[in-house]
């Protein structure tokens, strides 16, 4: 398959996924569009190195997260993680077991949003991948650390978020 065809196939299949990643990091639509373009540029530039070793989804997420972390013109420290109430995977952050059925109310969501934005950039990246419903193995493939390390980090993030949200209730 020619590079151009492969690029089109990847972008067509992953457009929504990439747009969601962009939406996690940018509130403003123009910024989202800029990051989207930047990710596509990096997919194009990295396409020659694509080997079928990893799944295409993981590969796309890797390019997207790496671009988000090094996005030109953005101050990483102030990078905001945007979550919305309709994200089906939102409960993975606050509810481990999934037993508790709950819909986050607007106030809780705002609190969660504030707490998420205090996280380090890497923790934000981990949360964004969790929100995408990726497994620990996939997240470890993307970030480049062991699965056990990902579990520890995510566990800590969840604990920290839970305790902060419970304190404020």
């Amino acid at each position, binding site marked *: 398959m020619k590079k*151009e065809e492969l*690029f*089109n196939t990847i*972008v067509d299949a992953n*457009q929504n996924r990439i747009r969601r990643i962009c939406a996690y990091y940018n509130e403003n639509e123009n910024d989202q569009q800029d990051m989207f*373009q930047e990710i*596509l*540029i*990096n*997919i*194009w*530039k*990295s396409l020659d*190195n*694509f080997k079928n070793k990893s799944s295409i989804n993981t*590969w796309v997420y*890797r*390019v997207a*997260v*790496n*671009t988000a*972390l*090094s996005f030109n013109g953005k101050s*990483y420290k102030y990078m905001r993680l945007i979550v919305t109430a309709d994200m089906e995977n939102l409960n993975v952050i606050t509810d481990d077991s999934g037993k508790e059925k709950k819909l986050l109310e607007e106030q809780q969501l705002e609190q969660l949003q504030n707490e998420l934005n205090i996280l*380090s*950039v*890497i*923790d934000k*990246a981990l949360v964004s991948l969790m929100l995408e419903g990726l497994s620990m193995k996939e997240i470890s*493939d*993307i*970030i*480049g*650390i062991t699965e056990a*390390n990902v579990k*520890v*980090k995510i566990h800590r993030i969840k604990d920290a978020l839970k305790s902060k949200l419970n304190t404020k209730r």
Partner: protein
Amino acid sequence: MKEHTNTSDNKISGLIKQLKAKDTNYSAISKRMQLIYWTLCPLYLFIIIMQIVEHSPSKEIISSFCFLFAMVTFALLFRKYQKEYAEVDYSQPTLLMLKKAVNRYEPFSSRTIGIIPGILLVDIGLTIKVSDQTDALLTQLVFIGAVGIGLVAGMIWWYIQYKPLRDHAQQLIDDIESA
């Protein structure tokens, strides 16, 4: 919906044009720089041949050889840097990508050693060219001064342009590795 898809397709097709332009641009810059260096090489070779034909003093011929080899060294080194900076792979695991970024933006790394032979060759070439000891000493002082000024200017440039990038990448690595 169809209209949206068409607009989206148009945007992607427009982007591909931009990407190709970018690729061509990188390739053109690389080509131009190589052309300059590789043009200087035969020029020095021509000077060497002329010096041999005209029976110039051997020290002048050796000096020109030093300059020639220095040009080749700089050309190869520059080509390597160009390639390295143009081909950043964003599809690597984040931690690996960040470590490579830190390495790229270090002011002194193992890669920097590659520049030493080129500088030494220029220095040797200049030193051989001058006739007496006093001139050689003066040449050394001027050369070391010039290299020193270049080093300071380079460090200031690095401090402003690249140190923040290096520090940020390092900070992210620390965040990832702190378990």
